C-alpha cells in the first residue's frame, strides 16, 4: 500500500530501523497508515490546505514583490517522540536556557566568565548584538530571554544536538498549536491510539511567564508587532488573542512622564510588559535606528527606569550569535557546575587560525555559516555545492574569517513525508519553546520543520520548508 523507504547515506530515520522494520513507537501509526487508501489520505491533505487557507495561517515572503501570503506546507505524517527521549530533552533544555540567562546577566554585569578566561572579551563586547545600554541594568528575576526556541537535530548516531539557540524573537509556536488542532480534526482516530501530550495550554504558560516578568501588581501585558506586513503577523495576532491581551503597533504606544501608555478608546492606559516581536534595532528610534517607524520614541529610557519590561530583553542576541554558540557547554559548566545534557554540534571558529586552516581545506565537506546570519541565508552546504560555489565561498571566508563558523555536514534525521510520488523520507529538525519566568516552563512539544526537497537539509520556511505536528508520547517508555 504505502511503501516506506529508508533515507540515503545511513541517516537516522524516525520511523524505520536500519533493518527497515518499524520502530516500536511508530507501529500503531504504521498499521493505521496501511489501512488508509492513498485517495482518502490525499483528500485529507486537500482538506488541510483548504482549512489553513481559510483560517489564514499564512506568512509573507520577504522580497516577494506581490506581497503574497503563502501557506507553509503542512505534512500529515506526525513526528513522534517517545517520552523517555523527551524527558532527556526537557532536562537538557532547562539546563541550557538557565545557563544562557545566567550568561546574559553576567556579561551585562560583572563579566565573571571573561575574567575567568573562558571567553575572549572581544567575542562579547565587539559583537554587534552586544548592547552597551544594558550594562548594569537589573531585570526582575535576572531573566533576559523569557522565550527561547532551541533548534535541535538528530544525528545519524541517534543522538540529539543543539543547532542553535534563538533568544531574540523566536517564531513558529503558532504552527505548533495549529498543526495539532489540524491533526486532531483530520485524524481523531489516531489520538485514540496514542497518548499525545497536549500543547494547547502554551498561551496560558506564556501569559503567566510575561506577568511574572514584571513586579507590578496585575501588570498589563501587550504583544508588540511590526504590523500586518510582517511575515509572522499571523502568529503575533494569534498569541495576543489566545492570551487575551492587546496586539499593539508602535503607533499605539507613547511615552509620558517615564511611563509607557497605549492609546485606547477610554484614554491612555499604562503598559507594564511588552512581548515584543520587533528586533532590538527597531524598538526606539531615539536610541537605535532613527529611521524605524515600528518602535516607540523614548521606550529605552522607560525600560532603563524599570517602568516597563521587554520580553525578550534588549541585547539577548549576543548569546545566540553563532560566534558565542561554541561556548555554551562551557557556560553550563561555569554557571551551573553541571555537565551539559544536550550536545553542541562540533564547530570550527574561523577566527582561530588552526580552525580556519581546517575549514579552508575541508570546505567541500562542511557547512559554513555567517556568524550573524539567520533563516538559512548566507551559508554554504559544501557537499551540495558546485566546485565554483565552494571556491567563491572560500574567498569570502578568507577575506573575513571571523565572520564565519563551520560545522560538519549534519545528518539531520528523516521522517516519512507525503511527496508527489507517495511517501518518502525527508529531513527534519525540532524547535521546542522554553519559557523562563519565576521558573522554567514548557509544553511537551515543539515545531518540527521538514525540508521538502529530496536530500535537502534546509528546513527554513523561507526556503521551501514545511512543518509537521510533533507528538510527545505520555506514559510509554
Amino acid at each position, binding site marked *: 500500500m504505502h511503501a516506506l523507504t529508508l533515507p540515503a547515506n545511513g541517516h537516522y530515520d524516525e520511523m524505520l530501523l536500519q533493518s527497515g522494520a518499524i520502530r516500536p513507537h511508530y507501529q500503531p501509526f504504521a498499521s493505521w497508515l496501511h489501512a488508509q487508501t492513498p485517495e482518502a489520505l490525499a483528500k485529507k491533505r486537500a482538506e488541510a490546505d483548504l482549512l489553513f487557507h481559510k483560517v489564514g495561517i499564512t506568512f509573507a515572503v520577504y522580497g516577494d514583490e506581490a506581497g503574497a501570503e503563502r501557506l507553509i506546507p503542512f505534512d500529515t505524517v506526525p513526528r513522534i517522540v517517545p517520552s523517555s527521549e523527551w524527558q532527556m530533552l526537557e532536562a537538557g533544555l532547562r539546563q541550557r536556557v538557565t545557563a544562557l540567562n545566567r550568561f546574559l546577566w553576567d556579561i551585562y554585569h560583572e563579566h565573571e566568565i571573561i575574567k575567568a578566561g573562558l571567553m575572549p572579551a572581544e567575542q562579547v563586547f565587539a559583537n554587534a548584538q552586544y548592547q552597551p545600554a544594558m550594562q548594569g541594568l537589573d531585570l526582575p528575576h535576572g531573566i533576559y530571554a523569557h522565550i527561547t526556541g532551541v533548534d535541535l537535530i538528530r544525528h545519524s548516531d541517534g543522538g540529539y544536538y543543539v543547532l542553535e539557540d534563538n533568544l531574540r524573537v523566536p517564531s513558529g509556536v503558532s504552527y505548533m498549536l495549529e498543526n495539532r488542532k489540524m491533526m486532531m480534526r483530520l485524524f481523531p482516530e489516531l489520538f485514540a491510539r496514542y497518548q499525545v501530550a497536549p500543547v494547547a495550554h502554551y498561551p496560558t504558560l506564556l501569559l503567566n511567564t510575561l506577568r511574572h516578568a514584571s513586579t507590578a501588581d496585575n501588570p498589563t501585558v501587550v504583544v508588540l508587532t511590526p504590523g*500586518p506586513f510582517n511575515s509572522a503577523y499571523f502568529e503575533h495576532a494569534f498569541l495576543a488573542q489566545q492570551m487575551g491581551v492587546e496586539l499593539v503597533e508602535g*503607533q499605539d504606544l507613547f511615552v509620558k512622564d517615564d511611563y509607557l501608555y497605549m492609546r485606547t*478608546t477610554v484614554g491612555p492606559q499604562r503598559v507594564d510588559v511588552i512581548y515584543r516581536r520587533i528586533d532590538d534595532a527597531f524598538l526606539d528610534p531615539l536610541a537605535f535606528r532613527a529611521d524605524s517607524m515600528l518602535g516607540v520614541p523614548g521606550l529605552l529610557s522607560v525600560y532603563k527606569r524599570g517602568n516597563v519590561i521587554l520580553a525578550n530583553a534588549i541585547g539577548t542576541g549576543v548569546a545566540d550569535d553563532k560566534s558565542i554558540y561554541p561556548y555554551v557547554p562551557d557556560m553550563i559548566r561555569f554557571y551551573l557546575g553541571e555537565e551539559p545534557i544536550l550536545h553542541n554540534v562540533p564547530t570550527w571558529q574561523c577566527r582561530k587560525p588552526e580552525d580556519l586552516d581546517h575549514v579552508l581545506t575541508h570546505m567541500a565537506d562542511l557547512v559554513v555559516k555567517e556568524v550573524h546570519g539567520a533563516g538559512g541565508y548566507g551559508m554554504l552546504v559544501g557537499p551540495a555545492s558546485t566546485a565554483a560555489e565552494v571556491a567563491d565561498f572560500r574567498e569570502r571566508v578568507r577575506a573575513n574569517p571571523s565572520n564565519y563558523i563551520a560545522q560538519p555536514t549534519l545528518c539531520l534525521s528523516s521522517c516519512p513525508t507525503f511527496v508527489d510520488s507517495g511517501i518518502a523520507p525527508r529531513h527534519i529538525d525540532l524547535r521546542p519553546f522554553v519559557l523562563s519566568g519565576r521558573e522554567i516552563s514548557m509544553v511537551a512539544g515543539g515545531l518540527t520543520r521538514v525540508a521538502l526537497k529530496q536530500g535537502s537539509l534546509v528546513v527554513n520556511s523561507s526556503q521551501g520548508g514545511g512543518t509537521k505536528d510533533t507528538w510527545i508520547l505520555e506514559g510509554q517508555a
Partner: protein
Amino acid sequence: MLSRTASQLYWMSRYLERAENLVRMLDVTHSLSLLPQSRGATTELAAPLAVTGSLDAYHAKHDKLAAEQLFNFMALDLDNPTSVLSCLKFARENAHAVRGQITSEMWEAINATWLEAKEMPKRGIPSVSAFFDWVKERSHLFRGATYGTLQRNDAYCFIRLGTFIERADNTARLLDVKSQLIAPAQPSLMPVDAPAESAPDFYAWSALLRSLSAFEAYHAAYRDALDGRRVTELLILRPDVPRSLRACCDEIRAILPQIEAGIGAQDAGRDVKKLAGKLAIQIEYGSVDEILALGLHEWLTGFLQRSARISEAVREAYLEAT
C-alpha cells in the same frame, strides 16, 4: 480597547456594509436598465456613479456610459477605490489587522469572501445578478457570524456602529438619487389617492424598495399602491424597516452608551452621543409632511450633513484618541 483597533473594526464593517449597499444599488440600476420603456436609461446608469462620487474616475477610463462597462467599473474594478471589490478588499485588510479581536468564524467568513472575490476580475462572473446575490450572501454570513459568535463587548459595539452609520448614509444617498430620477418634481405634488402612477414609476419605486429589502414591508404597512410619499415615509420614518433612517439612527443612539466610557465630563463620547440623540429624536418625532414641505432633496442633504458630523465625532471621540 486600542483606538486603532476600534477604528479598524469600525471601518471593516463600514466597508462591508458599503459593499452590500453598493450591490443593492447596482441591482436596482440593473433591473431598471432592463425595462424597455425606462426613461433616461443613461441617467439611470449614472446613478451609482453619482452616489459614490466616481463619475470623473469612470469617464477617465471609459468613453461612454454603457451597462457592461459600468458594472465592471463599479463591481470588479480594483483600480476604482469605490468598487464592490475594493470595499471587500478594504474590509478584509481591516479585519486582517484586528483578527485577534474578532472570532475565527468572522475572520474565516471575511477572508474566504476576499479569496473568492479577488479571482473574479480574472475568472469572470457567471452573471451580474449572481454576483449581487453572492455579495449580499457573504455580507449576511459575516453579520450572522458576528451576531452569533462575538462577545458583546466594545468590539461588537464598534462593528455595529460602523454598520449603521454607513447604512444610514447609503440609504439616504440612494433615496436622494433615485427620487430625483423618478420624480424630479416634489413627491408632495402626488396626491395619495391619485390614479396609479405611470408604469415606469411603479417599477422604479418597487426596484428601490426591493434594493432595500423593503418591498414586502411596504405592502404589509400600507396594503396599497406604490407612491413616492409613502416610500419616503417608509424609508425615513418607519422604525420597523431595518434599512430606514429611523431604524439606523435608533441603533446608533442605542449603541453609543454601551461603549466603555468615563463619567460626565470624563466621557470622551459626550459630543457624539448628543449629536446622535438629537438626530434620532428629530426623526422619531418628524413627519412626512414636514419633510416634503422642506423638499425631500433638501431634507436628505441636511440629514447627510448631520450624519457626517456624527461620523466625525465618532472619530474624534474614540478612533483617534491621544
